[in-house]
């Protein structure tokens, strides 16, 4: 079936797709977004039920391979110590994330110049500054301006409370003389733009029933739709087609009834994350593009970066916030910048965890062997439950071509579309960085008086940040898109998600992903008259 052509077709309604849809709406072009998922119903979010913790092991797992909702596609990540996690719905993975909101640092855009590794980005931090600010207003950010070791931000809402866990962490960091600061987060601490303030449901990651955590289904999308953007849900794109001129002509997708459709478009924008985007490009094979669309460089799918998380946690005598607060509230940039005396290049951010709920605590502690079976179970559990503090080093992953997304030769999704396959190893540099982070984390926990130290090295289900698989650059031989997101090979094809990252920095990337999407939208709007030149 053929639909009426649209001016702009966006694939994916998550963090970046929503942002660019909203920004382009003021052009009054006919904009259509297709998403394989649907609208979520907050009344059904886990924290509305007594079985709120159990759901995280099943239908609300962060892993699509465990969750297996109809909207999900399988991912073969057997050959990776870090498993891919995501969420597929309107809002994408902003429905299911911790809402931690650091920005990449200015130095992150110039790693080759500063440290002689990887590549510099073709743009710098200053180019993104106005879009960081705009995005912070749109998503609704809470935080405390003035962090001496982070880029200056102006959060429109005050920071989260320290709670019970925050002072324990702050005192430990002060004892060590190390930097810490309240995190910028997209958790609303006051009523904000129709969102109710946070009431500390505590189970933020698998979606916020209160609506205090920003996800693009409740931030960007209502504005974009009011401005005329059309959003079709439960539409899974199989491939992008091209015409005789090598331009994208539209997409083939399966609609909510499973019927194959063709949607013609003048411009196609991909916003499917660092795994979904290369998967789509590699599935879009034609005579002119035999190795996948926009892949003359051979780099589509390569240079996958995850951010290996090295986590260490322990138990203090004092009560911690446990499940009674957003999981993250503080960060540290003490070890963010390169110091070669540490034995590795680049660095890592630290995010602190406030604790865990009783089921999570019991299950994790039994698996770690610190919670016994039998009569001593009750005594030990009472010592652990509500007393956990966690320190996670979020390590900058440098791009390496052998870390990649390809198409699995066997595995397919429910529409028969080849699924992605991940091949990934932790580099020697990342390994040293993780060891350093664990050692410093142990010092922090010991300064806080914690015992029964455990580690997750790496956090196995920690592949939240999917970056680098369609990198941006000025050289078509060394990059997939140019410095404003347009594919070198296809002049009406744009990519706006984390796959265009050149390097990863050592922080959660969503703020930067969305700033990039807004920047690319702005670049497109400035060039509307000659967008395809």
């Amino acid at each position, binding site marked *: 079936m053929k639909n009426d052509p649209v001016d702009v077709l966006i694939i994916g309604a998550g963090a970046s797709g929503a942002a660019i849809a909203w920004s382009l709406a003021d052009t009054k072009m006919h904009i259509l977004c297709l998403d394989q998922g649907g609208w979520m119903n907050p009344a059904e979010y886990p924290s509305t039920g*007594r079985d*709120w913790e159990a759901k995280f*092991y099943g239908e609300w797992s962060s892993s699509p391979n465990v969750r297996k909702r109809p909207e999900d596609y399988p991912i073969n990540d057997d050959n990776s110590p870090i498993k891919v996690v995501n969420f597929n719905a309107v809002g994408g993975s902003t429905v299911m994330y911790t809402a931690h909101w650091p920005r990449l640092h200015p130095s992150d855009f110039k790693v080759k110049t500063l440290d002689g590794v990887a590549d510099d980005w073709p743009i710098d*931090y200053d180019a993104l500054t106005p879009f960081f600010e705009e995005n912070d207003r749109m998503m609704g950010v809470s935080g405390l301006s003035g962090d001496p070791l982070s880029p200056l931000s102006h959060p429109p809402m005050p920071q989260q409370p320290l709670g019970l866990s925050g002072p324990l962490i702050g005192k430990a960091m002060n004892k060590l003389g190390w930097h810490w600061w309240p995190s910028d987060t997209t958790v609303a601490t006051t009523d904000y733009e129709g969102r109710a303030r946070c009431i500390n449901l505590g189970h933020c990651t698998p979606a916020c029933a209160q609506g205090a955590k920003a996800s693009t289904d409740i931030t960007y999308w209502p504005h974009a739709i009011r401005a005329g953007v059309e959003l079709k849900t439960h539409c899974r794109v199989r491939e992008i087609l091209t015409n005789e001129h090598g331009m994208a002509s539209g997409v083939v997708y399966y609609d909510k009834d499973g019927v194959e459709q063709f949607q013609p478009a003048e411009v196609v924008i991909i916003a499917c994350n660092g795994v979904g985007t290369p998967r789509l490009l590699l599935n879009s094979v034609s005579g002119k593009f035999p190795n996948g669309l926009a892949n003359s460089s051979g780099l589509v799918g390569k240079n996958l970066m995850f951010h290996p998380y090295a986590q260490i946690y322990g138990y203090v005598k004092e009560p911690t916030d446990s499940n009674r607060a957003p999981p993250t509230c503080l960060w540290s940039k003490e070890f963010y910048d390169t110091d070669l005396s540490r034995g590795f290049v680049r660095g890592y951010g630290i995010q602190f965890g406030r604790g865990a709920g009783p089921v999570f605590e019991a299950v994790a502690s039994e698996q770690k062997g610190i919670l016994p079976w*039998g009569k001593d179970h009750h005594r030990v559990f009472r010592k652990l439950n509500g007393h956990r503090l966690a320190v996670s080093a979020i390590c900058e992953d440098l791009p390496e071509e052998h870390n990649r997304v390809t198409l699995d030769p066997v595995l397919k999704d429910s529409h028969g579309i080849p699924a992605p396959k991940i091949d990934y190893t932790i580099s020697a540099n990342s390994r040293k960085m993780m060891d350093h982070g664990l050692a410093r984390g142990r010092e922090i926990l010991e300064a806080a008086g914690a015992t029964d130290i455990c580690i997750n090295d790496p956090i196995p289900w920690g592949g939240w940040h999917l970056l680098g698989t369609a990198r941006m650059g000025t050289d078509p031989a060394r990059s997939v898109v140019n410095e404003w997101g347009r594919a070198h090979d296809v002049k009406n094809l744009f990519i706006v998600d984390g796959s265009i990252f050149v390097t990863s920095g050592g922080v959660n990337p969503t703020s930067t992903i969305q700033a990039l999407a807004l920047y690319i939208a702005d670049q497109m709007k400035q060039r509307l008259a000659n967008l395809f030149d």
Partner: protein
Amino acid sequence: MSDSKQLTAAQRADLRTVAAMIVPESAEYKVPGADDPAIQADMLATLGRDTALVAQALDHLADLAGKPLAELDEARRDAVAQEFRKLGGVAAATLVRVVLQCYYRDDRVLRSLGLELRAPFPKGHVLPDGDWSLLDPVKARGGTLRRAT
């Protein structure tokens, strides 16, 4: 094995036995064991997508025990349990998780832990703002962002 497979009577009996081994009743803490009928009923009613793996784990347990777990003497039962946990892989981990996730949402257990018997939403929780003067040393120390050039 399909998700809809139901546990057999023998599997249910072994589930009861192993659940009590994981979390026994405690008079000291005034809590039931995980073999309590209400907790067992919760497990069976909510097994859902875990049914196949739990059944697999119980089959493994039965193979190790050679007879109903409850009929083994305590020392042998403990040895079987240790072997099961050591070698049982994902299936054993799933069984243990199912036991714990049902146990730690039981009203009597939550009450004993001093936790409220409710979902987080809509009441939420109140958090102390905390002593922000703790940040003074960080502010005093200052610092500068690494230059990009």
